[in-house]
Protein backbone atom coordinates (compact mmCIF):
# COMPACT_ATOMS: atom_id res chain seq x y z
CA UNK A 1 0.00 0.00 0.00
CA UNK A 2 1.36 3.42 -0.94
CA UNK A 3 0.20 6.76 0.36
CA UNK A 4 0.31 9.49 -2.22
CA UNK A 5 -0.53 13.14 -1.85
CA UNK A 6 -1.76 14.81 -5.00
CA UNK A 7 -1.57 18.60 -5.01
CA UNK A 8 -3.93 20.53 -7.26
CA UNK A 9 -3.51 24.25 -7.83
CA UNK A 10 -4.90 26.87 -10.13
CA UNK A 11 -2.64 27.72 -13.06
CA UNK A 12 -0.68 30.95 -12.65
CA UNK A 13 -2.90 32.87 -15.02
CA UNK A 14 -6.17 31.93 -13.36
CA UNK A 15 -7.56 34.41 -10.86
CA UNK A 16 -8.06 32.84 -7.45
CA UNK A 17 -10.74 34.82 -5.63
CA UNK A 18 -10.38 32.76 -2.47
CA UNK A 19 -6.66 33.53 -2.20
CA UNK A 20 -7.39 37.23 -2.56
CA UNK A 21 -10.14 37.19 0.01
CA UNK A 22 -8.01 35.33 2.52
CA UNK A 23 -5.09 37.67 1.96
CA UNK A 24 -7.37 40.61 2.68
CA UNK A 25 -8.78 38.95 5.77
CA UNK A 26 -5.26 38.28 7.07
CA UNK A 27 -4.32 41.89 6.52
CA UNK A 28 -7.43 43.09 8.27
CA UNK A 29 -6.38 41.02 11.27
CA UNK A 30 -3.20 43.09 11.24
CA UNK A 31 -0.72 40.58 9.81
CA UNK A 32 0.77 42.79 7.16
CA UNK A 33 3.91 40.68 7.06
CA UNK A 34 1.92 38.09 5.14
CA UNK A 35 2.31 39.06 1.51
CA UNK A 36 0.42 36.61 -0.59
CA UNK A 37 -1.80 33.61 -0.01
CA UNK A 38 -2.48 30.95 -2.58
CA UNK A 39 -5.02 28.26 -1.93
CA UNK A 40 -4.85 24.75 -3.26
CA UNK A 41 -6.32 21.40 -2.48
CA UNK A 42 -4.76 18.04 -2.01
CA UNK A 43 -5.96 14.48 -2.16
CA UNK A 44 -4.42 11.85 0.04
CA UNK A 45 -4.91 8.52 -1.65
CA UNK A 46 -4.00 5.04 -0.53
CA UNK A 47 -3.14 2.87 -3.51
CA UNK A 48 -2.41 -0.81 -3.72
CA UNK A 49 0.20 -2.36 -6.03
CA UNK A 50 3.82 -1.89 -6.98
CA UNK A 51 5.19 1.60 -7.12
CA UNK A 52 5.25 1.87 -10.91
CA UNK A 53 1.64 0.84 -11.12
CA UNK A 54 0.77 3.24 -8.32
CA UNK A 55 2.32 6.14 -10.19
CA UNK A 56 0.42 5.20 -13.27
CA UNK A 57 -2.88 5.02 -11.39
CA UNK A 58 -2.25 8.34 -9.69
CA UNK A 59 -1.56 10.00 -13.03
CA UNK A 60 -4.67 8.48 -14.53
CA UNK A 61 -7.13 9.42 -11.80
CA UNK A 62 -5.63 12.90 -11.65
CA UNK A 63 -5.93 13.43 -15.34
CA UNK A 64 -9.33 11.89 -15.73
CA UNK A 65 -11.02 13.14 -12.61
CA UNK A 66 -9.17 15.12 -10.01
CA UNK A 67 -7.79 17.90 -12.18
CA UNK A 68 -9.50 20.22 -14.63
CA UNK A 69 -6.76 21.20 -17.02
CA UNK A 70 -8.57 24.30 -18.14
CA UNK A 71 -7.82 25.80 -14.76
CA UNK A 72 -5.57 23.58 -12.78
CA UNK A 73 -2.29 21.71 -12.70
CA UNK A 74 -1.13 18.98 -10.38
CA UNK A 75 1.90 17.42 -8.80
CA UNK A 76 2.14 14.44 -6.51
CA UNK A 77 4.39 13.16 -3.78
CA UNK A 78 4.85 9.62 -2.63
CA UNK A 79 4.41 9.95 1.11
CA UNK A 80 5.25 6.46 2.26
CA UNK A 81 5.26 2.91 1.09
CA UNK A 82 4.12 0.07 3.26
Amino acid at each position, binding site marked *: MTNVRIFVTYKE*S*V*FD*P*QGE*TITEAIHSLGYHEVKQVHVGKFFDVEVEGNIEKVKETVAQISEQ*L*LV*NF*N*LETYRYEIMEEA
Partner: protein
Amino acid sequence: MKIAVVVFPGSNCDIDLYEALHTVCHADVAYVSHTQKSLAGFDAVMLPGGFSYGDYLRSGAIARFSNIMPAIIEFAQAGKFVFGTCNGFQILTEAGLLPGALKRNNGLKFICKTVELEVSNNQTAFTTQYQAGEHISLPIAHADGSYYADKATLEKLERNGQVVFRYAGENPNGSLNNIAGITNEQGNVLGMMPHPERAVEALLGNEDGLRLFKSILENGKIKEEAAL
Protein backbone atom coordinates in the same frame (compact mmCIF):
# COMPACT_ATOMS: atom_id res chain seq x y z
CA MET B 1 -39.59 16.59 -31.58
CA LYS B 2 -38.91 14.53 -28.50
CA ILE B 3 -36.81 15.95 -25.68
CA ALA B 4 -34.95 14.11 -22.94
CA VAL B 5 -34.35 15.70 -19.54
CA VAL B 6 -31.47 13.83 -17.92
CA VAL B 7 -31.69 13.20 -14.18
CA PHE B 8 -28.36 12.84 -12.41
CA PRO B 9 -28.05 11.98 -8.73
CA GLY B 10 -28.44 15.40 -7.16
CA SER B 11 -30.16 17.11 -10.11
CA ASN B 12 -32.84 19.35 -8.71
CA CYS B 13 -34.03 21.60 -11.52
CA ASP B 14 -35.07 18.55 -13.54
CA ILE B 15 -38.73 19.12 -12.78
CA ASP B 16 -38.40 22.81 -13.68
CA LEU B 17 -37.12 21.97 -17.16
CA TYR B 18 -39.70 19.26 -17.57
CA GLU B 19 -42.60 21.48 -16.56
CA ALA B 20 -41.41 24.39 -18.69
CA LEU B 21 -41.37 22.09 -21.72
CA HIS B 22 -44.37 19.95 -20.91
CA THR B 23 -46.87 22.22 -19.19
CA VAL B 24 -45.93 25.58 -20.64
CA CYS B 25 -44.65 24.69 -24.13
CA HIS B 26 -46.71 21.50 -24.60
CA ALA B 27 -43.62 19.74 -25.88
CA ASP B 28 -43.03 15.98 -25.94
CA VAL B 29 -40.59 15.44 -23.09
CA ALA B 30 -39.44 12.59 -20.84
CA TYR B 31 -37.02 12.11 -17.98
CA VAL B 32 -34.01 9.92 -18.69
CA SER B 33 -31.99 8.50 -15.82
CA HIS B 34 -28.20 8.87 -15.72
CA THR B 35 -28.05 5.08 -15.60
CA GLN B 36 -29.46 4.73 -19.13
CA LYS B 37 -27.06 4.17 -21.97
CA SER B 38 -29.09 5.31 -24.90
CA LEU B 39 -30.93 8.37 -26.14
CA ALA B 40 -32.59 6.51 -28.99
CA GLY B 41 -35.84 8.12 -30.00
CA PHE B 42 -34.92 11.57 -28.75
CA ASP B 43 -34.20 14.63 -30.85
CA ALA B 44 -32.84 16.88 -28.14
CA VAL B 45 -31.34 16.39 -24.70
CA MET B 46 -31.35 18.80 -21.79
CA LEU B 47 -29.16 18.74 -18.69
CA PRO B 48 -30.81 20.38 -15.72
CA GLY B 49 -29.45 22.46 -12.88
CA GLY B 50 -28.78 21.15 -9.42
CA PHE B 51 -25.92 19.65 -7.51
CA SER B 52 -25.01 16.44 -9.28
CA TYR B 53 -22.97 14.33 -6.86
CA GLY B 54 -23.27 17.16 -4.38
CA ASP B 55 -20.91 19.26 -6.53
CA TYR B 56 -18.20 17.46 -4.63
CA LEU B 57 -14.74 17.71 -6.17
CA ARG B 58 -15.89 20.26 -8.80
CA SER B 59 -19.35 21.06 -10.12
CA GLY B 60 -20.20 18.58 -12.83
CA ALA B 61 -16.90 16.70 -12.54
CA ILE B 62 -18.32 13.38 -11.39
CA ALA B 63 -21.53 13.48 -13.41
CA ARG B 64 -19.59 13.49 -16.64
CA PHE B 65 -18.69 9.84 -16.01
CA SER B 66 -22.35 8.77 -15.87
CA ASN B 67 -23.54 5.93 -18.05
CA ILE B 68 -25.58 8.32 -20.14
CA MET B 69 -22.66 10.60 -21.05
CA PRO B 70 -21.32 8.65 -24.05
CA ALA B 71 -24.79 8.82 -25.54
CA ILE B 72 -24.91 12.57 -24.97
CA ILE B 73 -21.51 13.02 -26.56
CA GLU B 74 -22.53 10.94 -29.54
CA PHE B 75 -25.73 12.94 -29.75
CA ALA B 76 -23.79 16.21 -29.80
CA GLN B 77 -21.44 14.90 -32.46
CA ALA B 78 -24.41 13.92 -34.57
CA GLY B 79 -25.48 17.56 -34.57
CA LYS B 80 -28.56 17.08 -32.39
CA PHE B 81 -29.52 19.72 -29.86
CA VAL B 82 -27.90 19.55 -26.45
CA PHE B 83 -28.77 22.13 -23.83
CA GLY B 84 -27.40 22.53 -20.32
CA THR B 85 -28.34 25.13 -17.75
CA CYS B 86 -26.40 25.83 -14.57
CA ASN B 87 -25.12 22.44 -13.36
CA GLY B 88 -25.93 21.20 -16.86
CA PHE B 89 -23.55 23.79 -18.30
CA GLN B 90 -20.89 22.75 -15.78
CA ILE B 91 -21.27 19.11 -16.81
CA LEU B 92 -20.99 20.01 -20.49
CA THR B 93 -17.71 21.86 -19.91
CA GLU B 94 -16.34 19.06 -17.73
CA ALA B 95 -17.24 16.58 -20.46
CA GLY B 96 -15.44 18.69 -23.03
CA LEU B 97 -18.55 19.32 -25.11
CA LEU B 98 -18.09 23.00 -24.46
CA PRO B 99 -14.76 24.80 -23.99
CA GLY B 100 -13.61 26.46 -20.78
CA ALA B 101 -14.64 25.93 -17.19
CA LEU B 102 -16.86 27.39 -14.51
CA LYS B 103 -15.11 28.37 -11.35
CA ARG B 104 -16.17 29.72 -7.98
CA ASN B 105 -17.93 33.10 -8.18
CA ASN B 106 -15.58 35.97 -7.50
CA GLY B 107 -17.68 36.88 -4.46
CA LEU B 108 -17.23 33.25 -3.27
CA LYS B 109 -20.92 32.98 -2.40
CA PHE B 110 -23.95 31.36 -3.94
CA ILE B 111 -26.09 34.02 -5.63
CA CYS B 112 -29.76 33.75 -6.47
CA LYS B 113 -31.14 36.78 -8.26
CA THR B 114 -32.39 38.05 -11.56
CA VAL B 115 -29.75 39.49 -13.87
CA GLU B 116 -29.83 41.41 -17.11
CA LEU B 117 -28.48 39.62 -20.16
CA GLU B 118 -27.69 40.59 -23.70
CA VAL B 119 -28.57 38.15 -26.46
CA SER B 120 -25.22 38.32 -28.24
CA ASN B 121 -26.10 35.86 -30.96
CA ASN B 122 -29.67 35.33 -32.07
CA GLN B 123 -28.67 33.12 -34.98
CA THR B 124 -28.32 29.92 -32.97
CA ALA B 125 -30.97 27.23 -32.88
CA PHE B 126 -31.62 28.27 -29.29
CA THR B 127 -32.13 31.98 -29.79
CA THR B 128 -33.88 32.67 -33.08
CA GLN B 129 -36.91 34.04 -31.27
CA TYR B 130 -34.87 36.79 -29.65
CA GLN B 131 -33.75 40.02 -31.31
CA ALA B 132 -30.05 40.53 -31.93
CA GLY B 133 -28.59 42.45 -29.01
CA GLU B 134 -31.87 42.32 -27.12
CA HIS B 135 -31.69 42.72 -23.36
CA ILE B 136 -33.58 40.18 -21.30
CA SER B 137 -33.76 39.25 -17.62
CA LEU B 138 -33.19 35.75 -16.28
CA PRO B 139 -32.59 34.33 -12.81
CA ILE B 140 -29.24 32.92 -11.83
CA ALA B 141 -28.68 30.58 -8.88
CA HIS B 142 -25.15 29.29 -8.54
CA ALA B 143 -21.92 29.37 -6.60
CA ASP B 144 -19.66 28.20 -9.44
CA GLY B 145 -20.60 30.31 -12.42
CA SER B 146 -17.52 32.33 -13.21
CA TYR B 147 -16.69 31.42 -16.79
CA TYR B 148 -13.03 30.94 -17.54
CA ALA B 149 -11.18 30.02 -20.69
CA ASP B 150 -7.69 30.85 -21.83
CA LYS B 151 -7.10 33.76 -24.14
CA ALA B 152 -6.95 31.78 -27.34
CA THR B 153 -10.21 30.01 -26.54
CA LEU B 154 -11.93 33.27 -25.68
CA GLU B 155 -10.81 34.83 -28.92
CA LYS B 156 -12.08 31.87 -30.85
CA LEU B 157 -15.43 31.95 -29.04
CA GLU B 158 -15.84 35.61 -29.88
CA ARG B 159 -14.72 35.23 -33.46
CA ASN B 160 -17.13 32.38 -34.11
CA GLY B 161 -20.07 34.07 -32.41
CA GLN B 162 -20.19 31.27 -29.87
CA VAL B 163 -20.96 33.68 -27.03
CA VAL B 164 -24.75 33.61 -26.97
CA PHE B 165 -25.59 35.34 -23.69
CA ARG B 166 -23.61 37.96 -21.86
CA TYR B 167 -24.22 39.66 -18.54
CA ALA B 168 -25.37 43.11 -19.51
CA GLY B 169 -25.68 44.83 -16.16
CA GLU B 170 -23.35 44.00 -13.35
CA ASN B 171 -21.21 40.90 -13.87
CA PRO B 172 -22.45 38.76 -10.98
CA ASN B 173 -19.65 36.22 -10.78
CA GLY B 174 -16.54 37.45 -12.55
CA SER B 175 -17.05 35.58 -15.81
CA LEU B 176 -14.50 36.55 -18.44
CA ASN B 177 -15.92 38.68 -21.25
CA ASN B 178 -19.15 38.73 -19.21
CA ILE B 179 -19.98 35.33 -20.65
CA ALA B 180 -23.21 33.79 -19.41
CA GLY B 181 -23.79 31.22 -22.15
CA ILE B 182 -21.90 29.69 -25.05
CA THR B 183 -22.36 27.18 -27.84
CA ASN B 184 -19.92 24.75 -29.33
CA GLU B 185 -18.43 25.48 -32.74
CA GLN B 186 -21.19 23.69 -34.59
CA GLY B 187 -23.81 25.61 -32.66
CA ASN B 188 -25.86 22.60 -31.59
CA VAL B 189 -24.72 22.52 -27.95
CA LEU B 190 -25.65 25.41 -25.65
CA GLY B 191 -24.60 25.82 -22.05
CA MET B 192 -25.64 28.74 -19.88
CA MET B 193 -25.55 29.62 -16.20
CA PRO B 194 -28.89 31.51 -16.07
CA HIS B 195 -32.10 29.54 -15.72
CA PRO B 196 -34.49 30.16 -18.62
CA GLU B 197 -36.76 27.42 -17.27
CA ARG B 198 -37.45 29.59 -14.23
CA ALA B 199 -38.74 32.37 -16.44
CA VAL B 200 -41.58 30.93 -18.49
CA GLU B 201 -44.69 31.97 -16.57
CA ALA B 202 -46.17 35.36 -15.80
CA LEU B 203 -47.34 34.02 -12.42
CA LEU B 204 -43.71 33.71 -11.35
CA GLY B 205 -42.97 37.17 -12.63
CA ASN B 206 -40.84 36.60 -15.73
CA GLU B 207 -41.36 35.08 -19.18
CA ASP B 208 -38.07 36.00 -20.81
CA GLY B 209 -36.88 32.41 -20.92
CA LEU B 210 -39.83 31.14 -22.88
CA ARG B 211 -38.51 32.12 -26.28
CA LEU B 212 -35.41 30.00 -25.77
CA PHE B 213 -37.53 26.86 -25.55
CA LYS B 214 -39.74 28.04 -28.39
CA SER B 215 -36.66 28.58 -30.53
CA ILE B 216 -35.48 25.04 -29.90
CA LEU B 217 -38.91 23.59 -30.64
CA GLU B 218 -39.31 25.62 -33.79
CA ASN B 219 -35.84 24.86 -35.10
CA GLY B 220 -36.27 21.23 -34.25
CA LYS B 221 -39.40 21.16 -36.31
CA ILE B 222 -37.69 22.86 -39.24
CA LYS B 223 -34.94 20.24 -39.03
CA GLU B 224 -37.45 17.44 -38.95
CA GLU B 225 -39.28 18.80 -41.96
CA ALA B 226 -36.03 19.22 -43.85
CA ALA B 227 -35.17 15.60 -43.13
CA LEU B 228 -38.44 14.37 -44.57
